[in-house]
Protein backbone atom coordinates (compact mmCIF):
# COMPACT_ATOMS: atom_id res chain seq x y z
CA UNK A 1 0.00 0.00 0.00
CA UNK A 2 1.38 3.34 -0.94
CA UNK A 3 1.98 6.10 1.52
CA UNK A 4 -0.45 8.90 1.96
CA UNK A 5 2.15 11.30 3.20
CA UNK A 6 3.05 12.71 -0.20
CA UNK A 7 0.75 15.06 -2.03
CA UNK A 8 -0.17 14.11 -5.55
CA UNK A 9 1.35 16.61 -7.90
CA UNK A 10 0.63 14.38 -10.87
CA UNK A 11 -2.53 16.13 -12.10
CA UNK A 12 -1.61 17.92 -15.25
CA UNK A 13 -5.16 19.15 -15.87
CA UNK A 14 -6.34 22.18 -13.99
CA UNK A 15 -9.57 21.54 -12.17
CA UNK A 16 -12.38 22.50 -14.57
CA UNK A 17 -14.63 23.55 -11.72
CA UNK A 18 -13.44 26.09 -9.25
CA UNK A 19 -13.86 24.91 -5.71
CA UNK A 20 -17.09 26.06 -4.22
CA UNK A 21 -16.96 27.61 -0.86
CA UNK A 22 -20.67 28.13 -0.44
CA UNK A 23 -21.08 24.90 1.49
CA UNK A 24 -21.74 25.65 5.12
CA UNK A 25 -19.41 22.90 6.22
CA UNK A 26 -16.33 24.57 4.84
CA UNK A 27 -14.80 26.96 7.30
CA UNK A 28 -12.40 29.68 6.24
CA UNK A 29 -8.84 28.50 6.30
CA UNK A 30 -9.65 24.83 5.87
CA UNK A 31 -11.06 24.71 2.38
CA UNK A 32 -9.99 21.81 0.30
CA UNK A 33 -7.13 22.95 -1.86
CA UNK A 34 -6.28 21.80 -5.32
CA UNK A 35 -2.98 20.39 -4.15
CA UNK A 36 -4.57 18.21 -1.49
CA UNK A 37 -4.08 14.49 -2.00
CA UNK A 38 -7.03 12.39 -3.13
CA UNK A 39 -7.11 10.85 0.33
CA UNK A 40 -7.29 14.21 2.09
CA UNK A 41 -10.16 15.25 -0.15
CA UNK A 42 -12.03 11.99 0.27
CA UNK A 43 -11.67 12.11 4.05
CA UNK A 44 -12.92 15.71 4.05
CA UNK A 45 -15.93 14.61 2.00
CA UNK A 46 -16.56 11.75 4.41
CA UNK A 47 -16.01 13.66 7.63
CA UNK A 48 -17.50 17.04 6.85
CA UNK A 49 -19.63 16.60 3.72
CA UNK A 50 -17.08 18.97 2.19
CA UNK A 51 -18.58 19.97 -1.15
CA UNK A 52 -15.51 21.81 -2.34
CA UNK A 53 -13.43 18.70 -1.77
CA UNK A 54 -16.00 16.64 -3.63
CA UNK A 55 -15.89 19.03 -6.58
CA UNK A 56 -12.14 18.65 -6.73
CA UNK A 57 -12.42 14.87 -6.69
CA UNK A 58 -15.10 15.12 -9.35
CA UNK A 59 -12.74 17.16 -11.51
CA UNK A 60 -9.98 14.61 -11.09
CA UNK A 61 -12.01 11.46 -11.71
CA UNK A 62 -15.08 12.21 -13.85
CA UNK A 63 -13.14 12.11 -17.12
CA UNK A 64 -11.53 8.79 -16.25
CA UNK A 65 -14.89 7.29 -15.36
CA UNK A 66 -16.39 8.63 -18.56
CA UNK A 67 -13.55 7.09 -20.55
CA UNK A 68 -14.15 3.71 -18.90
CA UNK A 69 -17.84 4.00 -19.73
CA UNK A 70 -17.14 4.81 -23.38
CA UNK A 71 -14.70 1.94 -23.66
CA UNK A 72 -17.20 -0.58 -22.31
CA UNK A 73 -20.49 0.69 -23.74
CA UNK A 74 -19.54 2.81 -26.78
CA UNK A 75 -22.41 5.03 -25.76
CA UNK A 76 -22.08 8.58 -24.44
CA UNK A 77 -25.35 8.58 -22.56
CA UNK A 78 -24.43 5.39 -20.73
CA UNK A 79 -20.95 6.71 -20.03
CA UNK A 80 -22.51 9.82 -18.51
CA UNK A 81 -24.82 7.64 -16.45
CA UNK A 82 -21.78 5.78 -15.22
CA UNK A 83 -20.08 9.01 -14.14
CA UNK A 84 -23.20 9.97 -12.23
CA UNK A 85 -23.65 6.57 -10.58
CA UNK A 86 -20.00 6.19 -9.67
CA UNK A 87 -19.51 9.71 -8.32
CA UNK A 88 -22.78 9.47 -6.42
CA UNK A 89 -21.45 6.32 -4.77
CA UNK A 90 -18.23 8.15 -3.93
CA UNK A 91 -20.24 10.91 -2.26
CA UNK A 92 -22.55 8.54 -0.43
CA UNK A 93 -19.94 6.10 0.77
CA UNK A 94 -17.13 8.52 1.52
CA UNK A 95 -17.83 8.31 5.29
CA UNK A 96 -17.00 4.61 5.04
CA UNK A 97 -13.76 5.00 3.11
CA UNK A 98 -11.07 3.11 4.93
CA UNK A 99 -7.46 4.20 4.66
CA UNK A 100 -6.40 0.66 5.50
CA UNK A 101 -8.04 -0.42 2.33
CA UNK A 102 -5.78 1.48 -0.06
CA UNK A 103 -5.49 4.76 -1.89
CA UNK A 104 -8.52 6.89 -2.70
CA UNK A 105 -7.78 6.31 -6.36
CA UNK A 106 -7.94 2.57 -5.90
CA UNK A 107 -11.17 2.86 -3.93
CA UNK A 108 -12.82 5.05 -6.56
CA UNK A 109 -11.67 2.62 -9.24
CA UNK A 110 -13.39 -0.23 -7.41
CA UNK A 111 -16.62 1.74 -6.97
CA UNK A 112 -16.61 2.61 -10.66
CA UNK A 113 -15.92 -0.97 -11.73
CA UNK A 114 -18.79 -2.15 -9.54
CA UNK A 115 -21.30 0.30 -10.96
CA UNK A 116 -20.10 -0.63 -14.43
CA UNK A 117 -20.53 -4.35 -13.80
CA UNK A 118 -24.12 -3.88 -12.63
CA UNK A 119 -24.90 -1.54 -15.49
CA UNK A 120 -23.59 -3.95 -18.13
CA UNK A 121 -25.47 -6.90 -16.68
CA UNK A 122 -28.64 -4.88 -16.73
CA UNK A 123 -28.10 -3.90 -20.35
CA UNK A 124 -27.39 -7.51 -21.33
CA UNK A 125 -30.38 -8.64 -19.28
CA UNK A 126 -28.36 -11.14 -17.34
CA UNK A 127 -29.73 -12.40 -14.04
CA UNK A 128 -29.26 -9.80 -11.32
CA UNK A 129 -29.19 -12.36 -8.52
CA UNK A 130 -25.72 -11.25 -7.55
CA UNK A 131 -24.55 -7.70 -7.83
CA UNK A 132 -21.09 -6.21 -7.94
CA UNK A 133 -21.02 -5.31 -4.26
CA UNK A 134 -21.52 -8.98 -3.38
CA UNK A 135 -18.56 -9.87 -5.57
CA UNK A 136 -16.18 -7.04 -4.74
CA UNK A 137 -17.11 -5.56 -1.37
CA UNK A 138 -15.97 -1.94 -1.35
CA UNK A 139 -16.54 -1.27 2.32
CA UNK A 140 -15.86 -3.64 5.14
CA UNK A 141 -18.91 -5.16 6.73
CA UNK A 142 -17.99 -6.88 9.95
CA UNK A 143 -14.38 -7.40 9.12
CA UNK A 144 -12.71 -5.64 12.01
CA UNK A 145 -10.10 -8.38 12.46
CA UNK A 146 -7.47 -6.38 10.65
CA UNK A 147 -7.81 -3.44 13.00
CA UNK A 148 -7.50 -5.72 15.99
CA UNK A 149 -4.47 -7.50 14.63
CA UNK A 150 -2.65 -4.24 14.30
CA UNK A 151 -3.08 -3.38 17.93
CA UNK A 152 0.19 -4.86 19.14
CA UNK A 153 2.52 -3.36 16.58
CA UNK A 154 0.72 -0.07 16.71
CA UNK A 155 1.44 0.30 20.40
CA UNK A 156 4.98 -0.96 20.06
CA UNK A 157 5.82 1.65 17.46
CA UNK A 158 4.13 4.60 19.01
CA UNK A 159 5.53 5.78 22.32
CA UNK A 160 3.56 8.86 22.76
CA UNK A 161 0.26 8.16 21.18
CA UNK A 162 -1.69 10.13 23.76
CA UNK A 163 -0.35 13.39 22.45
CA UNK A 164 -2.10 12.74 19.17
CA UNK A 165 -5.47 12.15 20.76
CA UNK A 166 -5.98 15.87 21.22
CA UNK A 167 -6.13 16.22 17.48
CA UNK A 168 -8.95 13.74 17.00
CA UNK A 169 -12.54 14.92 16.93
CA UNK A 170 -14.19 14.10 20.30
CA UNK A 171 -16.51 11.49 18.88
CA UNK A 172 -13.67 9.54 17.24
CA UNK A 173 -11.40 9.88 20.26
CA UNK A 174 -14.05 8.43 22.56
CA UNK A 175 -14.39 5.40 20.31
CA UNK A 176 -10.67 4.83 19.90
CA UNK A 177 -10.18 5.02 23.65
CA UNK A 178 -12.93 2.53 24.35
CA UNK A 179 -11.44 -0.01 22.00
CA UNK A 180 -7.71 0.53 22.39
CA UNK A 181 -7.34 1.79 25.96
CA UNK A 182 -10.18 0.05 27.73
CA UNK A 183 -9.98 -2.96 25.47
CA UNK A 184 -13.71 -3.19 24.99
CA UNK A 185 -15.31 -5.15 22.21
CA UNK A 186 -17.10 -3.15 19.54
CA UNK A 187 -20.45 -4.16 21.00
CA UNK A 188 -19.47 -3.14 24.54
CA UNK A 189 -18.08 0.18 23.36
CA UNK A 190 -21.22 0.94 21.36
CA UNK A 191 -23.32 0.26 24.47
CA UNK A 192 -21.04 2.34 26.65
CA UNK A 193 -21.16 5.31 24.27
CA UNK A 194 -24.80 4.74 23.43
CA UNK A 195 -24.29 4.85 19.67
CA UNK A 196 -25.18 2.32 16.96
CA UNK A 197 -22.56 -0.30 16.24
CA UNK A 198 -22.12 0.87 12.65
CA UNK A 199 -21.48 4.43 13.76
CA UNK A 200 -18.92 3.17 16.22
CA UNK A 201 -17.12 1.21 13.52
CA UNK A 202 -16.96 4.07 11.07
CA UNK A 203 -15.74 6.46 13.77
CA UNK A 204 -13.14 3.93 14.79
CA UNK A 205 -11.96 3.53 11.25
CA UNK A 206 -11.73 7.26 10.62
CA UNK A 207 -10.09 7.89 13.98
CA UNK A 208 -7.49 5.22 13.44
CA UNK A 209 -6.87 6.48 9.92
CA UNK A 210 -6.26 9.95 11.21
CA UNK A 211 -3.99 8.74 13.99
CA UNK A 212 -2.01 6.69 11.58
CA UNK A 213 -1.60 9.70 9.35
CA UNK A 214 -0.44 11.77 12.29
CA UNK A 215 1.99 9.15 13.44
CA UNK A 216 3.21 8.68 9.91
CA UNK A 217 2.79 4.92 9.85
CA UNK A 218 0.45 4.60 6.96
CA UNK A 219 1.40 1.18 5.78
Amino acid at each position, binding site marked *: *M*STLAGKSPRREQPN*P*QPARTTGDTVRPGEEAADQSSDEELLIAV*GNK*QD*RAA*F*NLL*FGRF*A*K*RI*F*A*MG*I*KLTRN*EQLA*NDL*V*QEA*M*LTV*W*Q*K*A*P*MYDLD*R*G*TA*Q*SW*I*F*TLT*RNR*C*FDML*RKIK*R*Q*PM*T*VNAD*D*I*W*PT*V*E*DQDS*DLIHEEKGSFYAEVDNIESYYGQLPDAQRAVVEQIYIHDRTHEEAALELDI*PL*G*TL*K*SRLRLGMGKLRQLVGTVE
Partner: protein
Amino acid sequence: MNAEVNFHPTDDLLAKFVRDELSAGMIVVIAAHVEQCQVCTQKTRDFEQTASIEWMEDVAEEADTAEQSAFADMAAKITSLPQIKESRQDDSVQHEIHVLDHSVRLPKVLAKLAAEGLVWKKMAGGINQASVALDDKTQCEFIYMKPGSQVPVHRHEGSEVTLVLDGSFRDDLGDYRPADFVVRDRSHTHQPASDEGCLCFAVLDSPLTFTQGLARLMNPFLKYRFWRATSAG
Protein backbone atom coordinates in the same frame (compact mmCIF):
# COMPACT_ATOMS: atom_id res chain seq x y z
CA MET B 1 -11.20 -16.75 6.83
CA ASN B 2 -9.41 -20.03 6.49
CA ALA B 3 -5.80 -19.90 7.51
CA GLU B 4 -4.86 -22.98 5.54
CA VAL B 5 -5.77 -22.70 1.91
CA ASN B 6 -3.55 -24.66 -0.43
CA PHE B 7 -4.96 -23.99 -3.88
CA HIS B 8 -5.50 -20.48 -5.18
CA PRO B 9 -6.41 -18.75 -8.44
CA THR B 10 -3.36 -17.70 -10.44
CA ASP B 11 -2.18 -14.09 -10.32
CA ASP B 12 -3.29 -13.75 -13.91
CA LEU B 13 -6.84 -14.73 -12.98
CA LEU B 14 -6.86 -12.37 -9.99
CA ALA B 15 -5.62 -9.48 -12.12
CA LYS B 16 -8.44 -10.11 -14.61
CA PHE B 17 -10.89 -10.58 -11.75
CA VAL B 18 -10.34 -7.08 -10.36
CA ARG B 19 -10.69 -5.63 -13.85
CA ASP B 20 -13.94 -7.43 -14.55
CA GLU B 21 -12.40 -9.17 -17.55
CA LEU B 22 -13.81 -12.66 -16.96
CA SER B 23 -17.18 -14.34 -17.37
CA ALA B 24 -19.63 -13.73 -14.55
CA GLY B 25 -19.42 -17.39 -13.56
CA MET B 26 -15.66 -17.20 -13.18
CA ILE B 27 -15.89 -13.91 -11.32
CA VAL B 28 -18.36 -15.35 -8.85
CA VAL B 29 -16.29 -18.44 -8.07
CA ILE B 30 -13.15 -16.34 -7.60
CA ALA B 31 -15.05 -13.91 -5.36
CA ALA B 32 -16.22 -16.82 -3.22
CA HIS B 33 -12.62 -18.00 -2.84
CA VAL B 34 -11.25 -14.53 -2.12
CA GLU B 35 -13.82 -13.99 0.62
CA GLN B 36 -12.38 -17.00 2.43
CA CYS B 37 -8.71 -16.49 1.65
CA GLN B 38 -6.62 -13.84 3.32
CA VAL B 39 -3.75 -14.21 0.87
CA CYS B 40 -5.96 -13.61 -2.14
CA THR B 41 -7.82 -10.78 -0.40
CA GLN B 42 -4.53 -8.95 -0.02
CA LYS B 43 -3.46 -9.76 -3.57
CA THR B 44 -6.79 -8.53 -4.86
CA ARG B 45 -6.25 -5.19 -3.17
CA ASP B 46 -2.77 -4.93 -4.64
CA PHE B 47 -4.10 -5.69 -8.10
CA GLU B 48 -6.86 -3.13 -7.64
CA GLN B 49 -4.19 -0.61 -6.78
CA THR B 50 -2.25 -1.45 -9.94
CA ALA B 51 -5.37 -1.40 -12.08
CA SER B 52 -6.36 2.00 -10.70
CA ILE B 53 -2.96 3.46 -11.55
CA GLU B 54 -3.22 2.20 -15.12
CA TRP B 55 -6.75 3.52 -15.29
CA MET B 56 -5.65 7.02 -14.29
CA GLU B 57 -2.72 6.97 -16.68
CA ASP B 58 -4.70 5.80 -19.66
CA VAL B 59 -5.17 8.98 -21.65
CA ALA B 60 -6.31 7.29 -24.84
CA GLU B 61 -9.90 8.40 -24.46
CA GLU B 62 -10.53 11.81 -23.01
CA ALA B 63 -13.89 13.39 -22.51
CA ASP B 64 -14.33 16.44 -24.70
CA THR B 65 -15.28 19.83 -23.37
CA ALA B 66 -18.98 19.32 -24.10
CA GLU B 67 -18.98 16.60 -21.48
CA GLN B 68 -17.35 18.85 -18.97
CA SER B 69 -20.37 21.15 -18.86
CA ALA B 70 -22.69 18.19 -18.33
CA PHE B 71 -20.45 17.27 -15.42
CA ALA B 72 -20.81 20.66 -13.75
CA ASP B 73 -24.50 20.16 -12.90
CA MET B 74 -23.94 16.59 -11.92
CA ALA B 75 -21.59 17.33 -9.03
CA ALA B 76 -24.03 19.86 -7.59
CA LYS B 77 -26.93 17.42 -7.82
CA ILE B 78 -24.96 14.67 -6.17
CA THR B 79 -23.88 16.74 -3.20
CA SER B 80 -27.49 17.70 -2.51
CA LEU B 81 -28.15 14.07 -1.60
CA PRO B 82 -27.51 12.56 1.83
CA GLN B 83 -24.50 10.40 2.55
CA ILE B 84 -24.50 6.90 3.98
CA LYS B 85 -22.97 6.91 7.43
CA GLU B 86 -22.65 3.24 8.16
CA SER B 87 -22.52 0.08 6.18
CA ARG B 88 -25.78 -1.75 6.26
CA GLN B 89 -25.58 -5.40 6.84
CA ASP B 90 -27.72 -7.39 4.55
CA ASP B 91 -29.51 -9.71 6.92
CA SER B 92 -32.01 -10.78 4.35
CA VAL B 93 -29.68 -13.40 2.90
CA GLN B 94 -29.54 -16.75 4.56
CA HIS B 95 -25.88 -17.77 4.58
CA GLU B 96 -26.42 -21.42 5.34
CA ILE B 97 -27.26 -24.23 2.99
CA HIS B 98 -28.56 -27.56 4.17
CA VAL B 99 -27.04 -30.71 2.76
CA LEU B 100 -28.22 -34.05 4.10
CA ASP B 101 -27.54 -34.00 7.80
CA HIS B 102 -25.82 -30.69 8.40
CA SER B 103 -25.76 -27.10 7.29
CA VAL B 104 -22.86 -25.33 5.65
CA ARG B 105 -22.07 -21.65 5.85
CA LEU B 106 -21.58 -20.23 2.37
CA PRO B 107 -19.52 -17.28 1.13
CA LYS B 108 -21.82 -14.29 0.74
CA VAL B 109 -21.95 -14.26 -3.03
CA LEU B 110 -22.86 -17.94 -3.19
CA ALA B 111 -25.40 -17.55 -0.41
CA LYS B 112 -27.12 -14.98 -2.58
CA LEU B 113 -27.24 -17.44 -5.46
CA ALA B 114 -28.45 -20.28 -3.28
CA ALA B 115 -31.12 -18.05 -1.78
CA GLU B 116 -32.87 -18.06 -5.14
CA GLY B 117 -33.67 -21.72 -4.49
CA LEU B 118 -31.64 -24.68 -5.64
CA VAL B 119 -33.09 -27.60 -7.54
CA TRP B 120 -30.96 -30.65 -6.87
CA LYS B 121 -30.68 -33.38 -9.46
CA LYS B 122 -29.26 -36.81 -8.86
CA MET B 123 -26.44 -37.80 -11.18
CA ALA B 124 -24.49 -41.05 -11.47
CA GLY B 125 -22.07 -42.14 -8.74
CA GLY B 126 -23.68 -40.47 -5.72
CA ILE B 127 -23.39 -36.96 -7.13
CA ASN B 128 -26.07 -34.30 -6.82
CA GLN B 129 -26.04 -31.12 -8.84
CA ALA B 130 -27.96 -27.86 -8.68
CA SER B 131 -27.42 -25.46 -11.56
CA VAL B 132 -27.54 -21.71 -11.30
CA ALA B 133 -27.73 -19.31 -14.22
CA LEU B 134 -25.19 -16.51 -14.25
CA ASP B 135 -24.22 -15.81 -17.83
CA ASP B 136 -24.27 -17.34 -21.29
CA LYS B 137 -20.67 -18.51 -21.33
CA THR B 138 -20.39 -20.80 -18.37
CA GLN B 139 -22.27 -23.53 -16.63
CA CYS B 140 -22.32 -23.03 -12.87
CA GLU B 141 -23.51 -25.46 -10.29
CA PHE B 142 -23.39 -26.53 -6.71
CA ILE B 143 -22.22 -30.12 -6.51
CA TYR B 144 -22.77 -32.35 -3.55
CA MET B 145 -20.79 -35.59 -3.45
CA LYS B 146 -22.10 -38.09 -0.93
CA PRO B 147 -19.60 -39.77 1.38
CA GLY B 148 -17.86 -42.51 -0.57
CA SER B 149 -18.92 -41.17 -3.97
CA GLN B 150 -16.90 -41.06 -7.13
CA VAL B 151 -17.35 -39.11 -10.34
CA PRO B 152 -16.73 -41.23 -13.45
CA VAL B 153 -13.37 -40.55 -15.13
CA HIS B 154 -13.72 -37.52 -17.31
CA ARG B 155 -11.85 -34.91 -19.24
CA HIS B 156 -12.75 -31.30 -19.89
CA GLU B 157 -13.01 -29.68 -23.26
CA GLY B 158 -12.35 -26.31 -21.73
CA SER B 159 -11.64 -25.64 -18.11
CA GLU B 160 -13.43 -26.34 -14.88
CA VAL B 161 -12.97 -24.55 -11.61
CA THR B 162 -14.12 -26.25 -8.46
CA LEU B 163 -14.27 -24.42 -5.15
CA VAL B 164 -14.58 -26.63 -2.09
CA LEU B 165 -17.18 -25.33 0.35
CA ASP B 166 -17.39 -28.14 2.84
CA GLY B 167 -15.88 -31.59 3.36
CA SER B 168 -13.17 -32.68 0.97
CA PHE B 169 -12.47 -34.50 -2.25
CA ARG B 170 -9.39 -35.86 -3.95
CA ASP B 171 -8.16 -36.82 -7.36
CA ASP B 172 -4.82 -38.09 -8.63
CA LEU B 173 -3.31 -34.61 -8.30
CA GLY B 174 -4.25 -33.75 -4.75
CA ASP B 175 -6.52 -33.51 -1.74
CA TYR B 176 -8.84 -30.53 -1.58
CA ARG B 177 -10.36 -28.89 1.47
CA PRO B 178 -12.65 -25.92 2.09
CA ALA B 179 -11.73 -22.72 0.19
CA ASP B 180 -9.38 -24.64 -2.13
CA PHE B 181 -9.68 -23.41 -5.71
CA VAL B 182 -9.08 -26.30 -8.11
CA VAL B 183 -8.56 -25.71 -11.83
CA ARG B 184 -8.70 -28.53 -14.37
CA ASP B 185 -8.37 -28.15 -18.11
CA ARG B 186 -8.24 -30.35 -21.16
CA SER B 187 -4.86 -31.75 -20.30
CA HIS B 188 -6.25 -33.44 -17.20
CA THR B 189 -8.27 -36.59 -17.13
CA HIS B 190 -9.41 -37.05 -13.61
CA GLN B 191 -11.70 -38.95 -11.33
CA PRO B 192 -12.70 -36.97 -8.26
CA ALA B 193 -13.76 -38.96 -5.21
CA SER B 194 -14.85 -38.05 -1.73
CA ASP B 195 -14.65 -40.20 1.38
CA GLU B 196 -16.30 -37.85 3.84
CA GLY B 197 -18.62 -36.12 1.40
CA CYS B 198 -18.09 -32.76 -0.23
CA LEU B 199 -20.02 -29.65 -1.17
CA CYS B 200 -18.49 -27.64 -4.02
CA PHE B 201 -19.31 -24.86 -6.38
CA ALA B 202 -18.13 -25.54 -9.93
CA VAL B 203 -17.85 -23.38 -13.01
CA LEU B 204 -17.38 -24.95 -16.41
CA ASP B 205 -16.71 -23.11 -19.60
CA SER B 206 -17.48 -26.16 -21.76
CA PRO B 207 -19.06 -29.58 -21.34
CA LEU B 208 -17.34 -32.49 -19.67
CA THR B 209 -16.40 -35.52 -21.71
CA PHE B 210 -16.46 -38.86 -19.94
CA THR B 211 -13.73 -41.13 -21.13
CA GLN B 212 -14.53 -44.52 -19.63
CA GLY B 213 -17.19 -47.17 -19.78
CA LEU B 214 -20.91 -46.65 -19.73
CA ALA B 215 -20.52 -43.10 -18.56
CA ARG B 216 -19.47 -42.25 -22.11
CA LEU B 217 -23.09 -42.70 -23.04
CA MET B 218 -23.74 -39.59 -21.00
CA ASN B 219 -21.64 -37.39 -23.27
CA PRO B 220 -24.27 -36.41 -25.81
CA PHE B 221 -26.66 -35.56 -22.98
CA LEU B 222 -24.10 -33.50 -21.16
CA LYS B 223 -23.43 -31.52 -24.27
CA TYR B 224 -27.13 -31.03 -24.71
CA ARG B 225 -27.51 -30.03 -21.10
CA PHE B 226 -24.61 -27.62 -21.33
CA TRP B 227 -26.05 -26.10 -24.45
CA ARG B 228 -29.40 -25.71 -22.69
CA ALA B 229 -27.82 -24.17 -19.63
CA THR B 230 -25.80 -21.65 -21.54
CA SER B 231 -28.42 -20.66 -24.07
CA ALA B 232 -31.27 -20.11 -21.64
CA GLY B 233 -32.07 -16.47 -21.15
